[in-house]
């Protein structure tokens, strides 16, 4: 098991290095150098940029040096927690990123739990009741869930909640808690707001996972060992839950890592509509403003999160399925 983890770890680190290349590429992709954009931004804000300041920036990012050196200077900064500077906010990127990434992780984790808690039971039900009314309804609802753009679903859900319960959703905190220090009441308030994005982001994922669970379970229910279990006179519930479902869930854990990118994508867009203080609004705004150090770092961290998630899913799979370890 240790050798397996070590192998996966080396693999993960090499991927992280590649991702940092892409992050750097994205930062340098837009036309015009960082200095040009910086100056233009300053002019828009009505301030003059001193020559000395530009010199300092050039030295900080090594902009007068060849590209590989620039990359090295950027990467070296990570150790000190230096990811560059956002000129739109005139703050360090690292200050802006942490809290927002935290909320993104919270929503992604919540959605993942939601997807599993909803999709697995429905998947089991539809597989054991193939072509019955419930199965057909679930199929149609699932197809619809896959076809609705996330942001529209968020809007519709907000309207429905507003009509039914008469309170406004959106944001992560009620007005009185936004700037308040963390307390139990603030956490409760957060949970009250968090479920809407979780449900919205989870819905499209649920549709997909439900179908996969149904297919897996149907395959397994046709296997002979299931027949054998029935022949031994076990109750049908025992056959399904203890013998079939266990084996049907294995492949889903592999999907766990692969479904993370979709969930993160969903949460980015939904946050815009719901006005959540997560990565989404800041990231897309940074892109529109060509605030590239902020955008590139965000993108890199999102990918880091995904790779880490994949790594954890791999280890989980290795723990429950010994065959994987000796691949």
């Amino acid at each position: 098991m240790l050798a397996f983890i070590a192998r996966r770890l080396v693999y993960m680190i090499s991927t992280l290095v590649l991702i940092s290349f892409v992050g750097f590429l994205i930062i340098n992709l837009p036309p015009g150098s960082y200095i040009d954009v910086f100056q233009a931004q300053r002019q828009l804000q009505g301030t003059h940029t001193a020559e000395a300041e530009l010199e300092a920036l050039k030295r900080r990012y090594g902009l007068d040096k060849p590209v590989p050196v620039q990359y090295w200077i950027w990467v070296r900064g990570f150790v000190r927690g230096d990811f560059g500077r956002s000129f739109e906010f005139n703050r360090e990127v690292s200050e802006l990123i942490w809290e927002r990434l935290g909320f993104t992780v919270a929503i992604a984790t919540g959605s993942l739990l939601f997807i599993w808690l909803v999709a697995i039971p429905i998947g089991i039900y539809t597989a054991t009741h193939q072509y019955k009314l419930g199965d057909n309804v679930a199929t149609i609802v699932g197809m619809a869930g896959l076809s609705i753009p996330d942001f529209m679903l968020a809007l519709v859900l907000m309207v429905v909640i507003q009509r039914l319960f008469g309170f406004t959703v959106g944001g992560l905190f009620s007005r009185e808690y936004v700037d308040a220090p963390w307390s139990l009441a603030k956490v409760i308030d957060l949970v009250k707001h968090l479920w809407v994005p979780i449900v919205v982001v989870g819905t499209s994922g649920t549709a997909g996972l439900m179908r996969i669970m149904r297919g897996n379970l149907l395959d397994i229910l046709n296997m002979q060992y299931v027949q054998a279990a029935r022949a031994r006179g076990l109750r049908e519930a025992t056959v399904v839950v203890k013998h079939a479902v266990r084996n049907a869930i294995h492949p889903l854990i592999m999907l766990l890592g692969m479904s993370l990118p979709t969930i993160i994508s969903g949460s980015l867009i939904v946050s815009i509509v719901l006005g959540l203080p997560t990565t989404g609004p800041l990231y897309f705004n940074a892109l529109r403003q060509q605030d590239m150090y902020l955008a590139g770092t965000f993108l890199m961290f999102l990918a880091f999160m995904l790779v880490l998630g994949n790594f954890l899913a791999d280890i989980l799979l290795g723990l429950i399925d010994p065959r994987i370890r000796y691949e």
Partner: protein
Amino acid sequence: MSDQSLTLPSAVSEPQAADVEVNLSAGEIGQLSLWYLIWRRFLRNRLAVAATFVLLLLYLMVALAEFITPYDHLLSNEDFVARAPQLPRFRDAAGQFHLRPFVYGTTTELDTYNLDWVHKDDTSQMYPLKLFVKGVPYKLLGLFPSERHLYGVDEPGTVFLLGTDRLGRDLFSRIVFGGRISMTVGLIGVSLTILFGSVMGTISGYFGGPVDTVIQRFIELLMSFPAIALWAALAAAMPADITIVTRFFLISIILSLIGWTSLARQVRAKVLAFREMEFSSAATAAGASHFRIIMVHMLPNALSHIIVIATLAIPGMILAETALSFLGLGILPPAVSWGTLLQDAQTVGVVIKKPWLMLPGAFVIVSVLSFNFLGDGIRDAVDPFAL
């Protein structure tokens, strides 16, 4: 050895194929081509056939946009800002029935509390709907000059079947013209996806070794980014001063730059399996070049799978374009796509007050659903020997 004898058995890659042919040795069914069998099986799937008709209808609508729409989609009309849909009616306020449907005129009042113009149906004015009315001149399909439009009403009446937007532009006209971009961006993106995906997948699977490793690592790298974030980053890097057409093509390219990965993986798996089969060993023994083996023996066999994956990739691309344009990173105004139209409906307040602004979303859902059903239908049909 002729090609025919090599490709025929391989076209039938399913193991049951041989049994079926033996059973049907006397009938003409044994001589039906694989594609005919696929077609016949596809026709049996009612949902997929219905979806095909819906899609054909949508594409026809988009192609004949100038004829179908009553107004110029860019023409703003300050007298009818954000007017609710004018529904065609058969029964007037007095309860009398009219065989020819009509729409009511509009009365406009100023809501002094919200400082907003409020448009109401004016039941005293009735404008019957007419077919093939004269309107703005245009060139149908860019070739035939005409000034007839499918439907319309006499001046000074207006017919906004799906309402108007915040500049008083006819929403139906905008949706139809927006469909031109939204419905084609996926098609172009998918053709590029097929190109990249099958080339990379075949190379990866056929040659194996270090080439395979490099390509697979590259695919994993691309897959470890949330797609929408990477799309947005690439879209944001486009220069701002390019024309609408260039932007449209660049966006299709960006969509396919990430979309090819899953296709490449599945093609690779197929090619890996084919490489072990007798027909490819036979081709190698007969002295066929790598290029010939790939083009004549591998790709035709994988073609049906490529088509399935490609069809199922189109809805993702339509949704991606919608999301990007919704975020202001895709198609930019004055060009219209379903995503840019949905930008008007970004807040709950708007959705409650002017729900018809969500209608472009309905078109997105219908086209995405149809492509999903079509893809499912083709997937079930390409395996015509399964029961």
